[in-house]
């Protein structure tokens, strides 16, 4: 292999290293950015869904309160609308959330809550305040605390996801660090090999020629390999021989 090819391959190796690690780092950084966006989006979505569910339950509670305590039957339709809003939000959460087990306690509490309220509507009797305070309220608190727990769970899972993001950030920077280390080793090797195969022989030839021209010391440079520098040395020897023979 010629001198030009060898040096070009040396530089190409370095370029390839930098290109490849750049590509991997870019890919990892892109993934990191997508994951961060997803994490933030899912967190804010969970908060929003929880808030809407709480609002809907609150509205149901107000409507029932009007019916039971103040005996205003007209609140029937607002209760139904609030319940529909709650069910819709819960269905939306079911579709968007990956781990459905997080919603289990809400489903359970809702079933219990609906059962009690349905009983109330089925009987068509306006129950007394005791029922509202002792039976209904217990179920209401269970449902709201299940929604709040879900909200807390979403917040707590942020810690785990943040650790995952930290690991991904590590993965994103590590290719760069390793490539830098390998590049430094290659640069050192490149320097050593360039010196050994090109710089040192040129210096030897120069010194040999200088000694020959100034002090007539015979040009006797020892060299390995069969590249252009070796040929240069051979041509110089031939030239000296030609000059001597004239």
């Amino acid at each position: 292999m010629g001198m030009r090819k060898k040096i070009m391959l040396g530089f190409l190796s370095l370029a390839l290293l930098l290109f490849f690690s750049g590509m991997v780092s870019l890919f990892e950084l892109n993934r990191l950015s997508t994951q961060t966006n997803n994490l933030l989006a899912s967190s804010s979505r969970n908060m929003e869904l929880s808030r809407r569910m709480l609002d809907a339950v609150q509205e149901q509670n107000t409507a029932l309160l009007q019916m039971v305590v103040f005996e205003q039957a007209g609140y029937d339709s607002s209760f139904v609308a609030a319940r529909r809003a709650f069910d819709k939000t819960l269905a939306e959460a079911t579709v968007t959330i990956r781990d459905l087990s997080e919603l289990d306690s809400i489903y359970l509490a809702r079933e219990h809550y609906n059962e009690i309220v349905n009983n109330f509507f089925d009987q068509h009797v306006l129950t007394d305040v005791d029922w509202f305070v002792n039976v209904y309220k217990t179920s209401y608190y269970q449902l709201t605390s299940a929604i709040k727990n879900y909200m807390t769970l979403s917040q707590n899972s942020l810690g785990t996801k943040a650790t995952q993001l930290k690991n991904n950030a590590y993965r994103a920077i590590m290719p760069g660090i390793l490539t830098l280390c390998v590049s430094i080793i290659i640069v050192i090797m490149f320097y050593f090999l360039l010196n050994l195969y090109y710089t040192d022989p040129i210096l030897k030839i120069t010194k040999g020629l200088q000694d020959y021209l100034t002090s007539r010391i015979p040009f006797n440079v020892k060299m390995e390999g069969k590249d252009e520098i070796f040929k240069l040395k051979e041509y110089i020897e031939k030239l000296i021989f030609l000059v001597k023979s004239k």
Partner: protein
Amino acid sequence: MRFNVILRYVGMVILLNAVFMFLSAGISYMNHMDTAFYPLLLSGVLTSVLGIFPLIFVEKSDQIYTKEGYVIVTGAWLVACLVGTFPYLLWGGEFDLSTAWFESVSGYTTTGATALSDVEALPRGMLFWRASTHWLGGVGVVMFALVVLPTLGRTKMTLSSVELSVLAKDNYKYRAQKIVHILLFVYVGITFVETILLKIAGTTWFDAVTTSFSTVATGGFSNYNSSIAHYNNIWIEMIIIFFMVLSGLHFGLIYATFSGKSNNIFRSEVARFYLYSILIGGFAIAISLWTSGTYPSLLSSMRYAYFQAAALISTTGFATADTNLWTSFAIIVLIWLMMQCGCAGSTSGGIKSDRVWLAMKVLRARILQQQHPNAIIRIKLNNVMQDNALVNFAMLFIVAYLVLILVGTIIVTAAGVDLMTGFSLITTCIGNVGPGFGSVGSMDNYAHFSPFVKSFSTLFMLLGRLEIFGLIQLFLIKWWK
């Protein structure tokens, strides 16, 4: 010392590692492109560039001097361990710098100790890479690379004389070039047969290949936290016992035995000593476990005792039981076995059965000499008169080995490790065994140690793998002149 020549050959060894990194990336790709794919691919590229670079400039050399041979071998081990950390570091997870270095050195030196608390969390590509480091390290990175080296004759002999211990070299009755081919033939053959048998016994193809890689290299990395106990299958255990014992034997003798030559396993004094050690040691442990009530029957005691005896003497280090719960007698027998280890010329580490057998003969000769002061007593091994220099070197090796264990134990206990753990940690690391006792027991790992203890352990793994003096010489500045 021609550094350019050293760079060329070390580069070739690095390239071999790159091939296995790409292979592991392929495994990762086949497993739905698991998280190990990009780390393995990038590692492969980095390692390839590092390996190819010297080959661009340095022409092949037909002559390698002994000192250069030493530097190539030890340098190749160290550089292979270094590039072996790339996939781990890039993958992340439990791997920090010290853990990645520990895992890599443990793989290449075929120690098989892990610094991971949950091996099962690793993706398949990474598990395959771990097993590959064993396989590459088992045959000796350099020894293996010799096959692809285009140079012939003296070059090979100079390198192999460094890689194989003096005793092992003496046992090979073949030409230098053939040694490499025999070694590879036996190595690949054992791997292939064991893979097939393990698959038949009920493992998956993936487990069969990786377990075979670990067994033939006498490594010990497993794909499961509970090692071979995970399978709870007596057939799998019996197959592994057979191949662990086989891999602890001299590869030249295995070849001779299976090719019907006269200098076979059964005629070798050392091989007989090694096999009797397993038989007697295993039986003694089984009796102790049975009488102490550790296991309900003699048969179940024998099942676990023979597995652990074979695992420790061959320096594989697989486990089917928690040996920390065994009797003191069983533990001390196991410690003896993990010091004696397999035969020279195999992939096992430790003092080696050859040297222990030779030491017994020297002891006997010394007693005879005292009884008959004028007698001329020669020490023979396999009916061959042993050179005094060789005998002295073997004795010196044993002394150096024991002194290093003592020094190592003092240092790790100073670092806060308890005596039993410290002693067994150093013994197991220098012997390239893997599990020890205390908090490094057969069902434990090295994850809880400080980065210093982990790094210090790797030094002993390298010392053991390079037969102590191989590594020490590299650091003697005077030797370089």
